[in-house]
C-alpha cells in the first residue's frame, strides 16, 4: 500500500511539473504577440548565448569530428569499409552529434547561467522590483532569452556541423591518408538537404528547451544560496534530459521509414 502511495505521489508530482512547465512555455510564447518588447535585452541575449558560445562549440565539435573519423576508420577496417569515413562523419555530425553535443554544451553553459542569474534575482528581490516598476518578468527576462536561444542555436549548430566535419577532414587527410579533394567531394555529395534541415530544426528546438528550462527553474528558485544551487542543477539536468528526449522524437519524425 505504501509503495503504491509513493508511486502515486511521484506520478502526480511529475504530472504537475509537466503541467507547470507547459503553462510556463505557453505563457512565454504568448508574449511574442503582445508588446511591449525589449530589443536591448534580446540583443544582449543573442550575444551572450550565440557569440560567446562559439569557442566551446568549436572545441567540442572539432574534437568529436576527429575522434569520429578515427573510430569509423578503425571500425570500418573490420569489414573493409575504411573508405566511408567522409560520409559517416558528415552524416553523424550533421544529423546527430552536431545538434546533440552543441545542445548539451549550451545546456551546460547557457542554461546554468540563465538559471543562476534569474534565481539570484529572485532571491535578492530583483524580480519583485521589476514587477513594482511595471515590468513583466516574463517579457523582460524570459522571452528575450528563449527567443534568442531559439534563433541563434541553428547558427551555432551550423557552425558546429562544419567544424566537426573539418575535424574529421583533418584527421582523415593528415592522419589516415585520405585525398583532400576526394574527402570533401564525398562529404558534399553524400549530404542531403533533409540532413541539414533536421540538424537546424533540432538546434532550434534544443535552444528553446535549454533557455526555457533556465528561466523556469530560475523563476521557481527557493531561498538563499542553496535555492540558487538547486535551481541551477535542476535546470541543467532537465534541459539535458529534454534535449536527449526531443532528439529521439525529432529523429523519429524526420527519418522513420
Amino acid at each position: 500500500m505504501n509503495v503504491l502511495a509513493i508511486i502515486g505521489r511521484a506520478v502526480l508530482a511529475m504530472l504537475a511539473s509537466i503541467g507547470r512547465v507547459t503553462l510556463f512555455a505557453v505563457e512565454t510564447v504568448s508574449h511574442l504577440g503582445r508588446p511591449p518588447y525589449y530589443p536591448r535585452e534580446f540583443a544582449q541575449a543573442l550575444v551572450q548565448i550565440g557569440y560567446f558560445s562559439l569557442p566551446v562549440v568549436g572545441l567540442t565539435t572539432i574534437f568529436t569530428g576527429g575522434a569520429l573519423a578515427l573510430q569509423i576508420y578503425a571500425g570500418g577496417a573490420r569489414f573493409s569499409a575504411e573508405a566511408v569515413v567522409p560520409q559517416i562523419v558528415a552524416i553523424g555530425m550533421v544529423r546527430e552529434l552536431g545538434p546533440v553535443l552543441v545542445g548539451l554544451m549550451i545546456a551546460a553553459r547557457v542554461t546554468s547561467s540563465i538559471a543562476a542569474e534569474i534565481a539570484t534575482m529572485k532571491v535578492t528581490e530583483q524580480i519583485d522590483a521589476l514587477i513594482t516598476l511595471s515590468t513583466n518578468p516574463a517579457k523582460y527576462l524570459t522571452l528575450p532569452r528563449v527567443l534568442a536561444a531559439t534563433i541563434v542555436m541553428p547558427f551555432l549548430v551550423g557552425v558546429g556541423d562544419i567544424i566537426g566535419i573539418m575535424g574529421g577532414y583533418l584527421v582523415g587527410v593528415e592522419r589516415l591518408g585520405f585525398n583532400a579533394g576526394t574527402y570533401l567531394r564525398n562529404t558534399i555529395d553524400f549530404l542531403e538537404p533533409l540532413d541539414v534541415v533536421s540538424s537546424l530544426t533540432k538546434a532550434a528546438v534544443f535552444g528553446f528547451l535549454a533557455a526555457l528550462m533556465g528561466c523556469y527553474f530560475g523563476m521557481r528558485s527557493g531561498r538563499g544560496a542553496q535555492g540558487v544551487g538547486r535551481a541551477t542543477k535542476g535546470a541543467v539536468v532537465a534541459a539535458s534530459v529534454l534535449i536527449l528526449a526531443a532528439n529521439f522524437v525529432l529523429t523519429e519524425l524526420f527519418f522513420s521509414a
Partner: protein
Amino acid sequence: MIDLVDVHKAFGANTVLTGVNLTLRKGRSMVIIGGSGTGKSVLLKCVLGLVQPDRGAISVDGTDVTNLRQGTSERDAFLARFGMLFQGSALFDSLPVWQNVAFRLLRGSLKKPRAEARDIAIEKLRRVGLSSEVADLFPAELSGGMQKRVGLARAIATEPEIIFFDEPTTGLDPIMAGVINDLIRGIASEMGSTAMTITHDMSSVRAIADEVAMLHDGMIQWTGPASEMDSCGDPCVAQFIAGSAEGPIETVR
C-alpha cells in the same frame, strides 16, 4: 487613501496575517513595527500585489486593488503610483546605476528620451546625496549605504504618490541609518507623498513616522500617532520600545 480590511495570508501551515485592518491617510507617513517574521514585508507585498491575500480586501482611493491581474493596464496604472525601496535595495546587477534609477523612464508608459532619463536619474542621485560620478558605476561597486541611496533614488525617480520603504536602515551603521531616515522624511515631505515604512529600528520610527502601527500575531495590535506611542499603554508596543525580553511578544519564535 490605502485601506486594508480583514487581510489574511498563510503560506501552507504557516499563518502570517490573521485579519489585518489598517488605514493610511493621504500625505501621511505610517511606520509598521513588529518583530522579525511577523509578516510586515508580506503586508507590504499584499498591497503591491506581489503576494495575493487569501482573504480580505485592499483598496487605494476607494478602488479595490486586491485582485488586479498582472500585465493589465489597470495594474500598470496602479503600480505607476508607487515607489518602493526594498530591504536589500534590489538593484539590477547588470545595469549601471543611472539605468537602475531611470528604469521606469527608459521603458513602458513613462518612457522618456534616453538623455532626458539620464538627466533625471542624475538629479535624483544628487537628491539622495550621490554625485554624478556614481551614475556609470555598477551596483556591485557601491557600498551598502550607497546602494540604499540608489534604491531610494529609483523609488522617487517618477515622483510617485505613494512610497513604500522595506527595512530602510537594516544593515547600515547608525550614522548612515540617520542619513537615510532624514532623506526619507525630507523626500516624503517635499513630494507630498504618502509613505508606508516597515522597520524594527526605533530610531527610524521616531525620525520618519506620523503614525505607527504595531503588527503582532498576524494582526494590528495598536495604531496611533507617533507622539502617543510611548504612552499608549499597549503591552506589545511597550515591550517593543523597551526592547525587553519580558512581555506578550515571545522571544523564541
